[in-house]
């Protein structure tokens, strides 16, 4: 079985389904020399003209092309002249298989590109200065590069479509759509969710949802991958920054921010830094200067999630292996990715009992801030406003789920994306890279490296394994894996599988004594785990489970809705690409390596909360009330 290579037609399969990395050049393939603008370049047969031009620094404008997606060749911006051919060729789609002479900027080419831009602008409604993508819009950049200073074929003065703001996460303004179909390829091919498709024909073509329903009423999982790949402002996240500013400005409100690991690795890009530049502690200072009253680290609740979710797994395993309970559902699935949660609710509702009931770190934190923290500080929870900085658009939906009110209030008031915080910081006149560093606030201050790596695919699994191995085997995880780096679950392969044998067991730690008297049932056991990122890969694993394949034999599987995990989330800076995600992941893993404490169960703040507040321990009554949740079987049929 090879899950990495989908059986579907390769001309349609986006690169990310082949593991999130660009197709490796076939080194066996013959080499061909082509001449581009007078420069000879040798390329492997099958290289596109666009790739060949990039290799020698010749820039060809693109719009519908995206490194994560299948080739479309529809916008025609990248046309070039090939000697001996009557028509221009789309360089993104033309594979070089023999010698050719190519001109990327002849008169015919320039005129064609300018016409194409004029034609695109003819239907693109809106003013650049009143657009969320001002400054990061590919259409705007092209217009600038090609010196567009008037609208040759006109420009709309009235909107044609109503903006769809029905979703908590993703807003669609089709007036700005240029029909590049990246969102379609993202949703249908890359994520296999299938919300968008081109509907209608010719000049009536538009990108639509099924039955033209509002986004809130279709199978959208809110992953926001379409936003990340939209070249214009047609797709954007639902931005709560005005409400957050209002809360900050309100003296009666205590505004608490929690920051997830991935935004730290991405936010520098909003300030022009190269991807992979973490600004964790600079951001803390900036947030305080913006007026947030407290800045907490979501890694704290990530560690808590590991304890709760890990305990839940242990309970399931014990039920299955010791009590012989045939109804216990294994493998257990992670539940921290809200995009994945909605995906399974829509497409595999019959498997909802496999989902860990543990809430995501964001929601656990919210429930604790409005209970534990409120008690500790004596602040009335009704006056606390909780904001979560997330790399994610689905977190906005998650915090608005009706069940997420276990503190007696809305546990998290606002989900804020990396991009939106970048804009808030700029609005406050702060240049983030220049900020002095400062630490997170108590009482949740110290986090561990395990929490940090939640941001990359495989990270939750690695964090869980670090803890489970140590708790069960009673010895350092470093004895199994150098530096506690659990390499088999790392990396961007779309689907990963690993086995870890527990040779011997240690004493049960105090925290878990009430739940399991002895680890003997795990002695010599082989723990089988899986990791999938991007819902297309998640679907592959789910189909494998349905078919009784190797993943059905797993004990624990990590699912992340977004390619690359949270670092590639729908709230992260635009653009995205395999290279950008790899750089962000690298930043996260080096941050992990720098932590003194790298295992969730050693996090002193976590241990403290089990001592002081959740005194019955993980998966107890109180923890169930505050830190666990339930799910909604939604199905995929729409009426």
């Amino acid at each position: 079985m090879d899950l990495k290579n989908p059986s579907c037609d390769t001309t349609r399969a986006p690169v990310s389904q082949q593991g999130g990395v660009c197709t490796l050049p076939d080194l066996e393939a013959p080499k061909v020399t082509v001449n581009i603008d007078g420069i000879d370049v040798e390329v492997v047969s099958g290289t596109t003209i666009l790739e060949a031009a990039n290799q020698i620094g010749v820039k060809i404008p693109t719009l519908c092309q995206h490194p994560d997606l299948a080739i479309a060749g529809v916008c025609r911006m990248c046309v070039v002249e090939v000697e001996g051919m009557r028509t221009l060729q789309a360089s993104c789609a033309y594979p070089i298989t023999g010698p050719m002479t190519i001109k990327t900027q002849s008169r015919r080419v320039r005129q064609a590109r300018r016409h194409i831009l004029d034609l695109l602008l003819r239907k693109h409604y809106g003013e650049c200065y009143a657009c969320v993508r001002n400054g990061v819009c590919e259409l705007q950049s092209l217009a600038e590069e090609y010196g567009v200073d008037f609208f040759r074929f006109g420009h709309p003065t009235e909107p044609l479509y109503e903006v769809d703001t029905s979703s908590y996460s993703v807003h669609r303004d089709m007036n700005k759509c240029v029909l590049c179909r990246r969102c379609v390829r993202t949703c249908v091919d890359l994520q296999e969710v299938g919300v968008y498709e081109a509907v209608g024909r010719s000049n009536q073509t538009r990108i639509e949802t099924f039955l033209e329903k509002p986004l809130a009423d279709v199978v959208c999982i809110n992953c926001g991958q379409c936003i990340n790949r939209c070249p214009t402002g047609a797709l954007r996240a639902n931005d709560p920054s005005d409400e957050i500013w209002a809360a900050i400005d309100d003296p009666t409100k205590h505004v608490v921010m929690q920051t997830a690991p991935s935004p730290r690795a991405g936010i520098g890009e909003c300030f022009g830094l190269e991807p992979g530049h973490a600004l964790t502690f600079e951001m803390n200072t900036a947030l305080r200067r913006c007026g947030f009253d407290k800045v907490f680290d979501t890694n704290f609740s990530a560690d808590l999630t590991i304890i709760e979710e890990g305990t839940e797994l242990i309970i399931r395993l014990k039920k299955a292996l010791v009590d012989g309970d045939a109804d216990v559902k294994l493998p257990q699935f992670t539940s921290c990715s809200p995009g994945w949660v909605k995906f399974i609710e829509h497409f595999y509702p019959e498997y909802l009992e496999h989902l860990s009931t543990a809430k995501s770190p964001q929601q656990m934190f919210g429930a604790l801030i409005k209970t534990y923290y409120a008690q500790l500080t004596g602040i009335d929870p009704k006056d606390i406003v909780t904001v979560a900085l997330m790399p994610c658009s689905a977190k906005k939906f998650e915090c608005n789920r009706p069940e997420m009110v276990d503190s007696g209030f809305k546990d998290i008031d606002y989900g804020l994306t990396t991009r939106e915080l970048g804009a808030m910081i700029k609005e406050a006149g702060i240049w983030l890279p220049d900020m002095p560093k400062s630490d997170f606030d108590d009482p949740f201050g110290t986090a561990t490296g395990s929490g940090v790596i939640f941001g990359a695919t495989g990270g939750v699994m690695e964090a869980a394994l670090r803890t489970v191995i140590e708790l069960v085997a009673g010895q350092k995880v470093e004895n199994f894996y150098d530096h506690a780096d659990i390499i088999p679950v790392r990396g961007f392969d779309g689907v990963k599988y690993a086995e870890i044998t527990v040779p011997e067991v240690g004493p049960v730690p105090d925290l878990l004594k009430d739940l399991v008297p002895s680890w003997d049932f795990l002695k010599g056991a082989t723990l089988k785990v899986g990791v999938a990122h991007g819902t297309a890969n998640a679907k592959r694993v789910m189909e494998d489970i349905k078919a009784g394949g190797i993943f059905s034999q797993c004990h624990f599987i990590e699912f992340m809705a977004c390619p690359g995990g949270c670092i590639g989330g729908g709230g992260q800076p635009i653009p995205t690409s395999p290279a950008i995600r790899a750089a962000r992941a690298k930043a996260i893993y080096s941050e992990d390596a720098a932590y003194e404490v790298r295992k969730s169960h050693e996090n002193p703040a976590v241990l403290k909360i089990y001592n002081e507040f959740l005194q019955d321990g993980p998966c107890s009554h109180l923890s169930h009330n505050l830190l666990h949740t339930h799910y909604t079987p939604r199905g995929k049929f729409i009426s």
Partner: protein
Amino acid sequence: MIIDSSKGTLTYASQERGAGLAAALGMTPTALIEFVKESGLKGRGGAGFTTGLKWQFAAAAPAPSEAAATEAGTAKYVVCNADEGEPGTFKDRVILTDHADLVFEGMTIAGYAIGAKRGVVYLRGEYTYLVPKLKEMLRARRDEGLLGSNVMGKEGFGFDIEIRMGSGAYVCGEETALIESLEGHRGEPRNRPPFPVDTGLGGKATTVNNVETLAWVPLILSRGAEWWKSLGTERSSGLKLFSVSGDCAAPGVYEFPFGLTVADLLKAVGGGDAKAVQVGGASGTCVPAKDFGRRIAFEDLSTGGSVIVFGPQRDMLQVAKNFMEFFVEESCGQCTPCREGNEVLLEGIEMLEYGECSTSYLKELVKLGETMQIASKCGLGQSSPNAFLSIVENFRDELMGRTVAE
């Protein structure tokens, strides 16, 4: 209700069923392809690609191993493009009505040549009324051993044909859009390369040939490549069917060798007083009277056979408008130049109609038309401005400074 469109007896009528196929099966596939190449037969759909060459490419496409071929059931495909939709074209309807047997025989021969076991006729939805008769004919061919396993007793050569219907989309006449449609997608043309002969239906090597092209194949096999080459011109060998409509005494389907002049043709159909002739349908060229000496052949006026005659009373702007309206509806809408460009040109025509178009804007529209011709993704967008451009070039005096639109 449908009157017989044929004008005169078509050469097809004299062809004996099975004779061409028997001749083909007497050769090796390689020799057969050489023979068809030698005849110079070019695609009758309009693009004029050498048929034998197309077959050669499809035959040479990576031959899947025997095991793989069995597993997949069929390794290659012959697709008959019967999605006749070019305005002014109806000769394929006539062939399918009176000589469909030859089309099926041509497909079978193509299958033998390229190593395909399956053929698909993609028939435009408008011609659904033909289906029962076509199916009956296929049954008869199966009964006679002209289809099925071991065709005409040829050991190891099995071939069968199914009919699939179009659903009202002109662009599906473009071969890659046709394949997309057969695969259950929107009929949006693909990037080329790869070409269908290499990566076609279901990713398999596929030859897509026009109805008329396939129907000529058995005749060429029976009568010889020399017979075919003796007709037409050097670069456009053989006979061609023409669909003639518009302002003439006797519209219908005519058979002529390639190379006749527009004037010759007008004479034959009774269109002597024409002021212009559209050769090649909406995507073709509008030829003014001064150019009636031009020859209809791939090297001059290339055409799939559509000839529309415009009498002296016709308003050429209205003609251009009708064609442009056609493309605005029939573009698939995926690529920018075609989706938006056709609309801009139509709006420009409307500006001309109301006398509101400046000379400089008209110049800009002409440049846009040229961009569409070279930058569009497929043949539709590359040819949709043709009629507009040739009418602007030849009938400027009818277009400029109009005062009142009717």
